């Protein structure tokens, strides 16, 4: 089937180059898929370990600054497998602890609270046993290794899909050795774009729901945590070598505190476990909290083993805006790619099978009358603006609140405040635009009636109008017939669209005195008017534009697309 299609000729790499690049890309992506699948299999295989009753003989938490992980479960549990008694020591399969103290202590505390006991010795529980190697057992199932592997494989798979599309495009371009083959080329480009933008959206969504939302929930909840005195056990600046060779630093603080008569420990300093470049700030924090010194921590009353020293987000708040460009580019790009794909399907105009085949053009249907109503597009604009405004300002407002409270506390966070200025300005523009677009939605609107509903070169039509609601006293109405070329081309970074108007005719300028008379307006198209063309990237469109000038209110412009069909055989001049 031949159809409108595009190939972006002159801007593409050579077909052979594309194929080689696509193969390398696909193979490289396949490595990630394999690793992801292997991790998934590893995780899944461990979840198939059998659940067996056990008795905990010991469960303490050992801490050693020099070890990795720093906090290890000093665990010993007894279980039976096929009549034989075994001793298990692992908390998770292949893992004895964590660098987060509360991750290990939460398991211990929840076991104790379930059993309503103060000590774990002799506590009956359940463990997981490897049926093939019954000496291998863990108290808990693997923590999310399968899901991580699946996500990893999914990302690799999406990149593989891009690679396969590049190879396919290259093969098609290679076989396309004629100009008419342009019809078959690159019709997969919207799919490729959808995958590409989908990846962007996934990263944005993953960060939003994986980091941003949980941290925000924790931050909101930490505002009501109980202020409690504590004692520092150790404090140091921890350095980590980054993936790009640079060193990042974090505050490593371990402290104990009493809550409702019981002693707890925690190594959580801030709400977000993170490290960054710049040692001085961290060193300053560590110097102010030497071992043995007292501090103030905030304890979760519902889970007293959870505590934090610094419950405001500080500069970490900047991470909140990190997913915005990903979400914007991803979701915006996805919508654009889907629209492009849909437009491509709608504009199939010719059908070719093997051998001689008659032309099958989708004719523009003749309609005796076309009723054009304004208002829908105005509401779409309003709701679109409202959504963007709510999304943008919702996120920005959280951090404005954080900056505001830093000023209220007398310790203004200048970096955060300055950083937020452009975001607040953009948000303010949205805040102004939303009521403006809402006002436009309620302003005077008209219903146009075009008879006949489809125009043709050299043809005539009659246009009438009728007030369809809205408020505002019109001062004058101007009606234009517009013809425009719209071309979409592959820009350096993103596709761009250019518009050139080839026809702008003032059909009528109706003063206040004649607005209510509703005199029909005659439209006469010239003999050499071009019919409507609805390609993917090349369009010839005709529109009626109504400019409504209102007293003391913004001017309203409504545009209505109309069709100009080609002449039929019997309509052509002899």
């Amino acid at each position, binding site marked *: 089937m031949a159809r409108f299609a595009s190939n972006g000729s002159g801007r593409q790499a050579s077909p052979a180059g594309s194929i080689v690049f696509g193969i390398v890309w696909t193979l490289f992506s396949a490595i990630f898929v394999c690793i992801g699948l292997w991790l998934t299999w590893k995780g899944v295989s461990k979840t198939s370990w059998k659940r067996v009753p056990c008795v905990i003989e010991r469960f303490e938490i050992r801490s050693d600054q020099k070890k990795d992980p720093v906090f290890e479960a000093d665990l010993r549990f007894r279980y039976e497998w096929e009549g034989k008694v075994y001793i298990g020591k692992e908390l998770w399969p292949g893992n004895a602890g964590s660098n987060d103290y509360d991750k290990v202590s939460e398991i211990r505390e929840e076991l104790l609270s379930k059993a309503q006991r103060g000590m774990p010795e002799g506590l009956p529980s359940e463990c997981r046993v490897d049926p093939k190697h019954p000496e291998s057992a863990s108290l808990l199932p693997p923590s999310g290794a399968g899901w991580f592997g699946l996500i990893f494989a999914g990302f690799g798979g999406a990149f593989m899909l891009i690679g396969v599309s590049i190879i396919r495009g290259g093969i098609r371009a290679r076989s396309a050795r004629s100009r008419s083959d342009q019809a078959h080329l690159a019709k997969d480009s919207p799919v490729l774009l959808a995958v590409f933008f989908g990846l962007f959206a996934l990263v944005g969504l993953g960060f939003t729901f994986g980091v941003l939302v949980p941290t925000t929930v924790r931050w909101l909840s930490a505002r009501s945590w109980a202020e409690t005195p504590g004692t520092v056990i150790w404090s140091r600046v921890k350095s980590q070598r980054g993936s790009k060779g640079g060193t990042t630093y974090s505050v490593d603080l371990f402290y104990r505190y009493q809550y409702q008569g019981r002693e707890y420990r925690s190594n959580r300093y801030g709400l977000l476990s993170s490290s960054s470049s710049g040692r001085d700030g961290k060193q300053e924090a560590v110097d102010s909290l030497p071992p043995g010194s007292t501090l103030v921590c905030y304890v979760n009353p519902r889970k007293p083993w959870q505590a934090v020293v610094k419950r405001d987000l500080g500069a970490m708040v900047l991470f909140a805006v990190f997913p915005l460009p990903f979400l914007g580019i991803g979701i915006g790009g996805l919508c654009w790619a889907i629209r492009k794909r849909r437009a491509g399907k709608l504009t199939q105009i010719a059908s070719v099978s093997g051998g*001689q085949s008659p032309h099958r053009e989708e004719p523009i249907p003749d309609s005796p009358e076309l009723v054009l109503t304004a208002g829908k597009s105005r509401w779409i604009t309003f709701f679109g603006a409202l959504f963007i405004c709510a999304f943008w300002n919702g996120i920005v407002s959280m951090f404005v609140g954080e900056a505001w409270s830093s000023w209220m506390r007398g310790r203004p966070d200048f970096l955060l405040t300055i950083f937020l200025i452009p975001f607040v300005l953009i948000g303010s523009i949205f805040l102004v635009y939303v009521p403006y677009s809402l006002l436009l939605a309620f302003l005077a609107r008209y219903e146009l009636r075009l008879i006949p509903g489809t125009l043709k070169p050299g043809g005539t039509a009659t246009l009438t109008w009728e007030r369809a609601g809205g408020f505002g006293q019109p001062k004058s109405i101007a009606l234009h017939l517009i013809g425009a070329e719209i071309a979409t081309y592959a820009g350096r970074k993103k596709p761009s669209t250019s518009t050139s108007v080839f026809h702008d005719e003032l059909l009528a300028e109706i003063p206040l005195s004649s607005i209510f008379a509703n005199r029909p307006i005659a439209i006469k198209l010239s003999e050499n008017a071009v019919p409507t063309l609805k390609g993917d990237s090349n369009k010839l469109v005709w529109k009626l534009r109504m400019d409504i000038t209102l007293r003391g209110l913004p001017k309203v412009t409504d545009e209505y697309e109309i069709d100009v069909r080609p002449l039929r055989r019997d309509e052509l001049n002899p």
Partner: protein
Amino acid sequence: MNPQGSITLDNAVAAFRPFDEIRGSVAWDLGSLPKSLELRLFWCTGGCGVPEAGVVQIQSLPLTSEGEATFSFSLPGAPYSVRGKLITLTWALELVANPIGSLALKEFVVGPEKQPVELPAIEQIKPSWWKAWRGNR
């Protein structure tokens, strides 16, 4: 020897009206037997937009290494040949052999007046939103 082909129209002027019949002859000399040989009637766009094409009709030709044949196609009613600032639309016949590719291409015009539709570029000055607001006071 390089594969060769030619397309000759019966009309002296390569300009037609919609629904006209376009007749002519094709000749080819490939040096070897092709897997497929066909004459395609199609239109394509040029200009600054991403090129698009629509194959309207295909006439299969005998699978011989050399030969001649006549052809006759009925043109459809649209699209018209267009020459605009951003978009041009051209009609053409192309002789294509597989696996060689294009052997010959003949462009022609389709329009009610046997002329491409010329689309002038009109300068449009859009009033700013501020002027739109202020203009009504």
